[in-house]
């Protein structure tokens, strides 16, 4: 406790509850929901991280990296906390601020801003692969909204994960969007492999079909884990009884009468009924082509975890009883899926916290604390086990509050060190700060917005947004089967009925602003509409870590020949009121690269502002974090 007292002395303003920005500065401190202040331990956490890193550097006789200056810090923290470069006003305001604790204040401000919500929505949506999938997750808007709501409310990560794993019920019911995770991949065994990779960072998919070739997991282990969620399934149509009693008659009539009407009937009923069923039975059967001698096809497996503590499973049917039933029987649902969710997200699970801190470290620093985010093993603790253990304990102490964890990282000297470009001559220890890597697609595109407007985060949503599917779901609660028939035969037809619902839904959302001023996250689920971000390598959400940071010809052609900044953009307005040409040049450097020009760059001043801006925007310095 003496330690903490000293901390309080040294970091006045960080340790007491820092007043949230009152909205006067550019970051719109109101994130839309009331959240707890960042607790006092953050500075202690940061110090602990730094102590371990310094110790390792000393042990290896490696020089510590120098600290970064205010310009570099301002640009970097904006990129990492809220996913865009600072506007010229934000940068100049920070640099000229003379308070000794301004960095800590800026970190706090950014973490509680709308920009944070936008940036981290992108991250979780990529991880969870939010995407429309035909007749499975037909429309992923509700899934998006659940993530956005969770980020706005700063839901602890373990709770988010638990909700995703254990989600049930209707897909399009507002607030129930966590069901999108299962619907995104409803093939139960693939879904299990994805969940394990997403939340525990492990690749066990090989064991789905055979004993894992080089890890310890056998096919039986896989099936035992699958037993928890057994019989969970996505059903998009009404339940058989409901179908028979309510919808079937008209469905037959429409099918014979008009294909379009039949489709509208089918699809609109699906919006009401599509749901995740099944709470997990705790029993699984080996596949019909099980090839090993340690089991038989269709043999019953009881739920078991891969490692760690087995959660309680309240069986209601004995295994012997199930053995006497035909092979499509898996037993009654007994909430075993919840038990698996408990195990997977428990603080005692040796992989959950490790995988989480590994991911967040990789996102912020660009290096592997433990290993590849989707390919960790039970034993490995990375190149600096003590640091890994420390970060795990910080995450647990923060109760999985991502903002607290990130704040600890951002406030550390380790984070605020000069960036390193990895190469064959890199030093032995590279966990002592961030490494050079390209900015994510959305970050690049959102950074263009910082050049256009004083308030790039203005139109980031603060509340639930309706879409055609959630809107129709609500309407459908009062619809009788006659209403559905009328809806199908009196509407604008198959191609347009969804568009009509979407229009009505948008009418409920109020003014969302002009889409030239939207951040990528406001475009939401339909990634195809954001072609610029796609060109920059935005994840197509097929793979869990599917971001592409590489150059290709179409991307470069766009940057060279297609990128335009509107005449009324912030940067042009600033340029027009700049005192002289030299001041214009400084402004351009600050707005785009977040720093002053170097003396060696003065020869470039002889060029026009437009030529210089084009070059700076196309430069490696702009697109790679520094």
């Amino acid at each position: 406790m003496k330690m903490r007292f000293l901390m309080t002395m040294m970091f006045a303003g960080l340790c007491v509850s820092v007043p949230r920005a009152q909205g006067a500065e550019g970051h719109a401190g109101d994130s839309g929901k009331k959240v707890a202040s960042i607790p006092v331990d953050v500075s202690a956490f940061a110090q602990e991280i730094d102590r371990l890193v310094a110790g390792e550097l000393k042990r290896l006789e490696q020089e510590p990296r120098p600290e970064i200056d205010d310009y570099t810090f301002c640009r970097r923290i904006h990129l990492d906390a809220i996913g865009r470069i600072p506007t010229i006003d934000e940068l100049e305001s920070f640099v000229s601020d003379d308070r000794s604790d301004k960095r800590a204040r800026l970190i706090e401000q950014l973490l509680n801003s709308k920009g944070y919500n936008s940036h981290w929505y992108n991250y979780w949506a990529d991880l969870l692969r939010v995407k429309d999938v035909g007749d499975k997750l037909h429309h992923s808007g509700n899934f998006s909204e659940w993530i956005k709501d969770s980020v706005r409310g700063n839901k602890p990560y373990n709770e988010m994960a638990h909700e995703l794993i254990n989600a049930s019920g209707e897909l399009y019911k507002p607030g129930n969007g966590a069901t999108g995770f299962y619907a995104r991949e409803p093939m139960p065994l693939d879904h299990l492999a994805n969940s394990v990779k997403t939340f525990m960072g492990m690749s066990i998919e090989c064991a789905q079909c055979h004993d894992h070739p080089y890890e310890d997991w056998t096919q039986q282990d896989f099936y035992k884990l699958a037993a928890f969620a057994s019989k969970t399934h996505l059903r998009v149509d009404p339940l058989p009884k409901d179908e028979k009693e309510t919808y079937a008659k008209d469905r037959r009539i429409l099918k014979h009468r008009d294909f379009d009407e039949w489709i509208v009937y089918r699809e609109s009923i699906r919006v009401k009924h599509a749901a995740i069923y099944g709470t997990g039975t705790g029993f699984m059967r080996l596949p019909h082509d099980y090839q090993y001698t340690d089991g038989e096809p269709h043999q019953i497996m009881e739920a078991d975890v891969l490692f760690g503590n087995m959660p309680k499973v309240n069986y209601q049917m004995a295994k012997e009883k199930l053995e006497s039933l035909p092979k499509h029987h898996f037993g009654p649902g007994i909430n075993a899926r919840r038990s698996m969710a408990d195990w997977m997200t428990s603080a005692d699970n040796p992989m959950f916290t490790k995988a989480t801190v590994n991911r967040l470290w990789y996102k912020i620093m660009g290096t592997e604390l433990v290993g590849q985010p989707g390919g960790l093993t039970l034993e490995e603790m990375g190149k600096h086990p003590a640091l890994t253990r420390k970060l795990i304990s910080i995450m647990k102490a923060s109760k999985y509050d991502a903002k607290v964890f990130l704040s600890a990282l951002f406030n550390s000297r380790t984070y605020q060190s000069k960036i390193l470009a990895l190469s064959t001559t890199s030093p032995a220890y590279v966990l002592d700060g961030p490494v050079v890597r390209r900015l994510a697609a959305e970050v690049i595109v959102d950074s263009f917005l910082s050049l256009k407007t004083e308030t790039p985060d203005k139109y980031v949503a603060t509340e639930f947004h309706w879409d055609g599917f959630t809107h129709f779901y609500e309407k459908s609660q009062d619809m009788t089967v006659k209403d559905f028939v009328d809806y199908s035969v009196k509407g604008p037809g198959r191609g347009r009925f969804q568009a009509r619902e979407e229009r009505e839904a948008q009418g409920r959302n109020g003014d969302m602003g002009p889409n030239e001023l939207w951040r990528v996250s406001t475009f939401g689920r339909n990634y195809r509409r954001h072609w610029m971000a796609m060109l920059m390598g935005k994840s197509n959400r097929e793979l869990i870590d599917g971001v592409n940071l590489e150059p290709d010809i179409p991307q470069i052609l766009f940057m060279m020949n297609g990128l335009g900044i509107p005449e009324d953009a912030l940067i042009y307005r600033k340029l027009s009121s700049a005192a002289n040409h030299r001041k214009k040049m400084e402004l351009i450097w600050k707005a785009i690269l977040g720093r002053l020009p170097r003396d060696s760059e003065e020869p470039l001043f002889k060029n026009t502002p437009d030529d210089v801006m084009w070059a700076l925007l196309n430069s490696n310095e702009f697109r790679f974090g520094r």
Partner: protein
Amino acid sequence: MNRRDFIYRVGMAGMSLPCLNATGASAQTSKAKSVIYIFLQGGLSQYDSFNVEVDKPVLGKSTIIKSNVDGVRVSNYYPKLARQMDQVLVLNAMKTNQGAHPAGIYKMLTGYNPRSTVTHPELGAWVNKCLTRERDSLPNFVSIGNGRAGSAGFFPGQWAALPVKDPDKGIDFVKRNESLGENAFKKRLNILDSLNKDFEKDFGSKDTRSYVDTYAGSLKFMNSNDIDAFELKNENPHIVNLYGKSEFSRSCLMAGRLVERGVRFVKVNLGGWDYHDGIYDKMPANANRLDSGLSSLLTHLGQKGLLDSTLVVVSTEFGRKPDVNPNRGRDHHPDGFTCLIAGAGVKAGQIYGSTTKDGKHADEDVLDVTDFNASIAWRLGIDPGYEENSASGRPFELANKGKAHKELFS
């Protein structure tokens, strides 16, 4: 600075020679100049297409029709290709070790199993890197259609495929902005060069250099006269009329145009084959696309005299099961699936390899995915054993130890 130096910075001289066959580039070992690689993502059902010599129940709802070659029969879903089987070699005993899509696709396209530590180049990227000459002004790896574009893996990004999402749209932003003169544009490039050189000193990495290289490649591309290759409206109407209007057909048309202009490896994506349910409702439309497009393409290449020098490949990541499942679909099946090759002197009008009659296993003349890729490379005159190192210095062979099967060719 000399313009030519500026826009063609990467040293190409001598780079392609080590890739060539150890036996040298004689007329026989380098019969193909180009590859058109049609990738059927999702898993083509072989018993509903080109592997019909199996027990009747295996065929499900497919029926058998004769082709224009005695002894070669196909499924009723491919009536057009049935009249051109004298140009095609059917490979019915393909085998892979992967049963899920992401890994299956990766294995087929790169020859390697996916690992979390490295991403491998696709075959097209190897071909691109090995065969690109300094005088080439078009990228040698183009990918048409949706789906996985064409990764360069651990090669620098410049060897990735140029993606053409929609053949009817051509290439976006390929022309310099109208308001900008050539000199002004050059000035901008000089400023950019200066900034990048500076950044490279303290912050340079393989990734930053990859960007510099790709800018060079893009400039070259912009300035090439051959961009016309991407304008379908400039094609001879007689050739255009060989094809239907579907996107796949138009993509095949563009592929033909590109190989006519010397592009070495054109990938055309036609996905959607993953029929786990309702296969006989959903598949016929896709089969029709493939049937029409491929048939037109073979005719197109024949008319232009390009069939001898172009290897046409139709592949898929795995096949589908011999039994139809309770959802009236077929599930994945890696042990005994079907690919096709045509052109470039293949032993056309034949079937190579067979499965057991119950459709469960590849049986005779089994061809592993790695052997398949090795054979394609060999036919282009590239040594399948050619090695390159990844960023960590680890060597990888083009064909991952696959062996070229010369008996596939005359």
